[in-house]
C-alpha cells in the first residue's frame, strides 16, 4: 500500500544542511495501523508528509499502491491526495471563516461534488463524530475537542484509503487524545490504513505496529 524506498530528504539552509531523512526504507500494508515515534526533530513529520505526497524527497521513491507518486504529474499527485489520502494535523488547520459543516465540505468541493451531496455527506460525517448540533459553528466557536473531531470528519470526507495523522493528539489533553485514538482505531477497523506520528509512547502503543525514527533513520 505505502512504501518508501531509500528515501532521503535534505534541507539546504544558508549556513548548514539538515539531513531530515536518511535512506528510509519502510513498507506499510493495506489496512495497517502504524505509529511512527521518535524524539523531536527526528524527521517524523517530514516522513509523514513525504509519504503523503507533500514533500518531494531528495532521493529515493515513495510508492502508493505500487505507483511512484513523485513521478506523477502535479495534477495527478493532487488527485491522489484528494481521493486516496486523508490528513489530520496537530493544529487541525480548519479554515477559520468556514463553519464546521463547510470545513468538512472542502475536500468534497475540491473533488467537484454537488453542493447538495457535499452537505449531506458532511452532515453525516459530523453526526458520526457527535457534532450534529455544531454544524454551523465556526472553529473559534468550538472547543479543541470539537475542532479535533471536525478535522477527523474532514479527513474522511472523500473516503480515503489512507489516513496520515501528524501529532493528532499533540494539542489535546489525555482524555481527548484517547477519544482521537478511538476514532482512528474505528477507521482502521473499517479498513483504512492509518499512520500516525507521535512522540508519545503511550499513544504509539495503541497502534498495531510501531516504527522508531532517530536522526532521520528507522531503527
Amino acid at each position, binding site marked *: 500500500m505505502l512504501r518508501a524506498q531509500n528515501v532521503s530528504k535534505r534541507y539546504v539552509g544558508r549556513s548548514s544542511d539538515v539531513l531530515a531523512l536518511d535512506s528510509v526504507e519502510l513498507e506499510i500494508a493495506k489496512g495497517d495501523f502504524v505509529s511512527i515515534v521518535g524524539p523531536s526533530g527526528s524527521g517524523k513529520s517530514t516522513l509523514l508528509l513525504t509519504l503523503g505526497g*507533500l514533500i518531494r524527497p531528495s532521493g529515493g521513491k515513495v510508492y502508493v499502491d505500487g505507483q511512484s507518486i513523485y513521478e506523477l504529474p502535479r495534477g495527478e499527485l493532487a488527485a491522489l491526495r484528494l481521493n486516496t489520502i486523508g490528513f489530520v494535523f496537530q493544529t487541525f488547520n480548519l479554515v*477559520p471563516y468556514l463553519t464546521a459543516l463547510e470545513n468538512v465540505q472542502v475536500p468534497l468541493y*475540491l473533488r467537484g461534488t454537488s453542493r447538495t451531496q457535499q452537505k449531506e455527506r458532511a452532515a453525516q460525517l459530523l453526526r458520526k463524530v457527535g457534532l450534529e448540533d455544531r454544524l454551523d459553528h465556526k472553529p473559534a466557536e468550538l472547543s479543541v475537542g470539537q475542532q479535533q473531531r471536525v478535522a477527523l470528519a474532514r479527513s474522511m470526507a472523500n473516503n480515503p484509503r489512507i489516513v496520515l495523522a501528524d501529532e493528532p493528539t499533540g494539542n489535546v489533553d489525555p482524555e481527548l487524545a484517547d477519544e482521537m485514538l478511538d476514532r482512528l482505531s474505528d477507521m482502521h477497523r473499517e479498513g483504512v490504513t492509518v499512520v500516525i506520528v507521535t512522540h508519545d509512547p503511550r499513544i504509539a502503543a495503541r497502534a498495531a505496529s510501531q516504527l522508531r525514527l532517530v536522526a532521520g533513520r528507522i531503527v
Partner: protein
Amino acid sequence: MNTFLLVLKELRERKSQLLTSFLAIVLGITVIVAVETITHFSEKAVAQELDNLGANVLILPKGATVNNYYTADFGEYVMPESYVDDITTSQLQGVDNLSPKLTEAITLRGQRVYLTGILPTEEFKAKPAWQAPGGIFARPQGCGTVVPGRLARALGGSGQGSAATNAAPRPVVDALGASQVLVGSDVAERLGLEVAGTLHIQGQAFAIQSVLPETGTVDDTRIFAHLHVVQELFHRDRVVNAIEMIGCCQEISKGLIDGLNRLLPEARVVTIKQIAQTQLSTNTMMKRFSLIFLVIILLVGAVSIANYMFANVYERRREIGTLLALGATRRQISIIFLLKSLMLGVAGGAVGYVAGMVLAVALGPRIAHVAVLPLPGLAGWAIALAVVVSIVASALPVSRAAQTDPAEILRDA
C-alpha cells in the same frame, strides 16, 4: 460550497482589511469616471465653440494654393459647383457645413474690391461672427451632417425649406435676393456704403441689404452677392473657386480629409491648420492630461490592491497549505484568489462608476462650466478597467499563493 461562496465568506471575514484596497479602487475609478465625464462634456463644449470660429477645411481647384484663397486671386482656377452635391450625397462623416464661393475682383468707385458669390444660407450658418447682436442670422444646431434639403434649396435659389430647416431656433435670413449684396465693414467704410444704398457692378444695380459686422478676416474687405448671380455676371457657368467646409474636428483626425481627396481627385483639400490644429491640440491636451491622471490613479489603486493581496496570501498561507494537502491543485488555488480579485474589481468599478457620475454631475458645472449628464456607456468601461487593474495587480500575489510549498507550512505547524 463552491469557489464563489468560499471567496465571499473570506471577504466577509476580513472586511476591515478589505476596506482600504476596496476604497483605493473605488476612489481611483471615481476620479477617472468623473474626469472622463467632465472632459467629455468639456470637449464637446470646446469643440462647439471652436466650430463657431468658422471653416476648418478648404476645397480648392487643383493647382490653387491657400495663398490664392487669402488674396482672392484665383486667376483661372475654378472647379465645378457640383462638387458640393458630390460631398453632400457621399457617405462621408463629419461634414458640418459647405460654403461654395466664387470670388472676382471688381473696381468700385475707383477702388479694387472683391465680389464673392455665396450661397446665403450655408454662409450664414458657417459664420457666426456675422450674427449681429440680437441675431439676424441664426446658426442651426447639430454637428456632422449637412442638410441636403437646405443645400438643394440654396442651390436652386428657391425659398421652400424642409422641416429640418424650419426647426432652426432663430430666424435665418436664408435668401439673398438676386439684386442684393452684403458689404464687409472695411469696404463699407472705405467706399462710404450704407444699408439701403445702391451699388452698380458689371452694369447691374444691387441694393445693400446689410453691412456686415467687423470680423477681422478677409470678409471685411469683400462684397457678397448670391453665388449664381456672380456666376452669371462673370459668365462662369456653375463653377466656384473655393468651397469652405466645417468638418467636425474628431472626424478630421479620423480620415475625413482622405475621404474628400478620394471623392474629389481633381480638387485640392486643405486643412486650415491653424484652426484645425487648435481644435485637435486642445482635445489632445485634455486627453493627455486625463491620461496621465488616469495612469497615476490606476497605479496607486493597483499598488494598494497588490499590497492587500500580498498580505492576504501571507496571512492565508496555512489555509493554502491545508487546501493543497487536502488535494487542491495549484490552479484551484489561483482561481480562488483571482475570483476574489475579480469580485473586488467588479464591485469597485460599479461603486466607483456611480460615485464618479455623481461627482461629475455635481462638480462639472462648477469647475468646467459645462452641464454634465451621466454617461451610462462608461459603466462597462469603468468595471472592465477596475477588473483589469485588480487582476493585473493580483497576478504576482496569486502566483505566490499558487507556488506555496505546503510542506514548509505544515512542517512548521
